């Protein structure tokens, strides 16, 4: 962090000196708008780069900020020195208001919906009659109204804004805030199941992002002295914010700055040289830049350069340390019957006429290993989704240690002590193994340091300590399964829901994971596991619940279940009977 701030400071110093040396007012203007677009890029990056919710509508916040400063100056005589911070508040509030409904959308729907806001505002401001607002010249006390004959002052103010935005980004990146946003980007549902309060972090991100954009817009109004709806709410504003960030590098502190430093002067100079001959040259430049980025370096210049440097330096060292096999604990007598952890009472849910789970009653005792089996489509995973709060039942109640949690959010249920893994593994692929688990640890830890310590312990427990610094995307299937368990363990769960944790594992790997599950159970974690591999399950679980077509077909000890005729017909198949007769 300190090193980063030092870098930012040094860059600021150089920029300030360059601005001081710029004589021509045209260069001074360019040196002023570069930081403005860098702030816009940082604003876009704060939301879209880290959380992955791509915004096509940052012009909405920018435009509101610009109009606020202009109108406040014209109508109330408010100085931009106060108006610009207020524009930040306006932008932040707008972000919050936009975020509350719009975060119900995902992916491209979110992007398109965001596009609608500035376009709608553009027409509203035209209709209100603000086709062109000019900021009045204040000859009495120009400095009080942020009006300077020496245009270099604007560049310095812009620079200060940019350095502030960079410091803010640096702080976010290092904190729980940034980690949570990145986890949301990588896999929102998994983040929520790991205890991240996704809605609240996203709203904070868009509020902060809107505030930065509002400040940039407010300052832009002061620099240009004229505000028109197309200039501040237009598509090019949103696009420029996105493009400088994408060009430089998404989800990085320096990316938007690099993008602005390269692209803004380029397009300005081309516009000045060729603008008369080729109108729209700026848009073409930005368009081509973004096409090139997507095709050649989709992560942006920053990452591309870093990768190239790493390759020249001999590549990322890929140390494979033989990991110690987890200690095998014999399946001893555990505290079965120590009260109910989960009680599911008459729970049903249907999706578009299909009854996925119908009237399911079951309970899980403390310290038990409960196996859930049944044919595909029997509702096993849906049951897990009900238990950890991904979906809410149409009918029935779910009690966790006697407390009704029906309809609670996944992060609340996680905080209450329920961890889960997924049928198809859902790691945060571009985060390190360690950071994956840190995300799971936040739920029980007030401090960042505490979360890191818990994460290290959880990784050691599953035997992934040696992989801690690798990126999760590089792990093998077994390691990913273990990583998911570690992430769930970091939240200190009372119950672990394991969804087909053994799927796709080789015979010896199955034994390793089974040993780990047994060990966890011996340490007092209640386990509910969905699995297809009957041979493994029969040896692992204390009790089976068999689901078929959404309903409980049978439950009981393994020995009873494997001989139950209804279970054999629906699930195990005739061959099972002949093989085990």
């Amino acid at each position, binding site marked *: 962090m300190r090193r980063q701030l030092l870098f930012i400071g040094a860059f600021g110093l150089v920029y300030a000196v360059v601005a001081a040396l710029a004589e021509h007012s045209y260069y001074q203007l360019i040196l002023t708008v570069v930081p403005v677009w860098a702030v816009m890029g940082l604003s876009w990056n704060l939301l879209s780069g880290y959380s992955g919710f791509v915004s096509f509508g940052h012009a909405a916040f920018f435009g509101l900020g610009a109009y606020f400063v202009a109108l406040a100056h014209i109508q109330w005589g408010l100085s931009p020195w106060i108006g610009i911070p207020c524009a930040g508040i306006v932008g932040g509030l707008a972000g919050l208001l936009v975020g509350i*409904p719009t975060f119900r959308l995902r*992916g491209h729907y979110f992007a398109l919906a965001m596009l609608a806001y500035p376009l709608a505002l553009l027409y509203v401001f035209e209709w209100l009659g603000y086709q062109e607002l000019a900021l009045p010249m204040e000859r009495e006390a120009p400095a009080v109204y942020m009006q300077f004959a020496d245009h270099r002052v604007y560049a310095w103010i812009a620079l200060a804004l940019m350095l502030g935005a960079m410091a803010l980004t640096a702080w976010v990146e290092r904190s729980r805030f940034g980690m949570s946003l990145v986890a949301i980007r990588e896999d929102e549902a998994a983040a929520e199941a790991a205890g991240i309060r996704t809605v609240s972090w996203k709203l904070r991100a868009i509020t902060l992002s809107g505030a930065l954009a509002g400040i940039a817009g407010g300052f832009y109004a002061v620099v240009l002295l004229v505000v028109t709806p197309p200039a501040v709410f237009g598509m090019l504003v949103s696009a420029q914010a996105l493009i400088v960030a*994408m060009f430089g590098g998404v989800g990085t502190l320096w990316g938007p700055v690099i993008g602005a430093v390269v692209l803004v002067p380029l397009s300005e100079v081309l516009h000045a040289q060729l603008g008369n001959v080729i109108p729209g*040259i700026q*848009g073409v430049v930005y*368009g081509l830049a973004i096409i090139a980025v997507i095709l050649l370096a989709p992560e942006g210049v920053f990452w591309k350069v870093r990768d190239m440097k790493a390759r020249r330096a001999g590549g990322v060292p890929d140390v494979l340390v033989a990991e110690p096999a987890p200690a095998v604990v014999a399946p001893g007598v555990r505290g079965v019957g120590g009260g109910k952890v989960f009680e599911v009472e008459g729970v049903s849910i249907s999706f578009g006429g299909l009854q996925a789970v119908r009237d399911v009653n079951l309970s899980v005792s403390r310290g038990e290993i409960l196996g859930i089996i049944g044919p595909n489509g029997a509702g096993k995973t849906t049951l897990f989704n009900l238990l950890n709060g991904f979906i809410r039942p149409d009918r029935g109640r779910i009690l966790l240690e006697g407390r009704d949690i029906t309809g609670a959010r996944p992060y609340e249920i996680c905080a209450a002590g329920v961890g889960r893994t997924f049928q198809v593994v859902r790691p945060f692929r571009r985060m390190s193994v360690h950071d994956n688990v840190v995300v799971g640890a936040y739920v029980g830890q007030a401090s960042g340091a505490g979360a890191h310590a818990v994460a290290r312990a959880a990784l050691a427990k599953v035997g992934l300590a040696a992989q801690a610094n690798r990126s999760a995307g590089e792990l093998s299937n077994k390691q990913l399964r273990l990583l998911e368990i570690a992430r769930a363990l970091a939240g200190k769960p009372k119950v672990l829901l394991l969804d087909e944790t053994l799927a796709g594992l080789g015979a010896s790997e199955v034994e390793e994971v089974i040993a780990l599950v047994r060990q966890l159970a011996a340490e007092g974690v209640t386990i509910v596991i969905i699995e297809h591999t009957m041979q493994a399950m029969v040896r692992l679980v204390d009790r089976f619940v068999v689901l078929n077509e959404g309903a409980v077909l049978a439950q009981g000890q393994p020995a009873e279940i494997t001989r139950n005729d209804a279970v054999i017909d629906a699930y195990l198949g005739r061959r099972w009977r002949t093989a085990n007769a």
Partner: protein
Amino acid sequence: MSAAQWVENFLQALTAGLLTGAIYGLMCVGLSVIFGVMRVINFAHGDFMMLGMYVAYYAFGMLGLQAIFGAGAAPYAAAVLAAPAVFLAGVLTHRFLVSKVTGMRGSGLAAEGHYAQLILTLGVALVLQNGGLYVFGSAPVSIPTPLASSAWEIGPLHGDLVSVFVNQGQTVAALIAAVVVAAFVLFMARSPLGKSLRAAADNPEAATYMGIDVGRAHRLAFGLGVAITAVGGGLLASGTSFQPYVGLEYVIVMYAGVVLGGLGSVSGAFFGGLTIGLVQQLSTLILPNQLQNTAIFVVFLGIVLLRPQGLFGRAARRT
């Protein structure tokens, strides 16, 4: 305002809405092939429509269409001529740009594939809009048609208090739009090519196992999608004036219509577009004219927020 006059205004807006809506419906059908069926996000779709408008404009002016078809029919012939030109532009865009981030390569990327498509086509949109400024100029133009200024009068009805004027130019355009939509829906549903396009969209890998050249199928579908929308643009061009930035306004209109109609349903997209046209025109009864588009944006937000599976189609199967 008297009740009779209110009824007259309402019927007038309703008629205008249906006529405009039919053209929007055609444009939405084009987008639905790309977005609804292939699940490719084409942010530049409105700009291909803009290309269609200018192709129609220049075809009308230069190719001697007026001599062949007469002043009345020439604008419509020009609109239809936009299709092959924009088809070619679409096929080339897909071949050299979009295909790099879609199809099997894109499906491997899952969410990141969508992200790349969105931003790549944003780049295409910026180039088309701003390049259009250079090529076509920024002054608004439109295709003159004698039919645009003549109307049939329905009525007087209800004594002689109410009468509705139906613009002849818009009516012909709406009819052409409906015919093109019907032909295209039939093509997708019945023809072997249409079926293999749907198969290639459903599952590119499995389609390859059937011996379908998936790259070619996606290219064709992209070309067809932008070409159909270009016809819609060409039809619109004889009623309204336009400039190179016109596409942006219609992007939202088209996505709203496609989502409303239900993703993956080509005929649903037509009714989605029709509904958007109605909303736009009926909004003039209560809102000032400048806020027509704002009304559409609000409707769009309402749709994606409240009913992303659409009003007409089945629930989206592949979300």
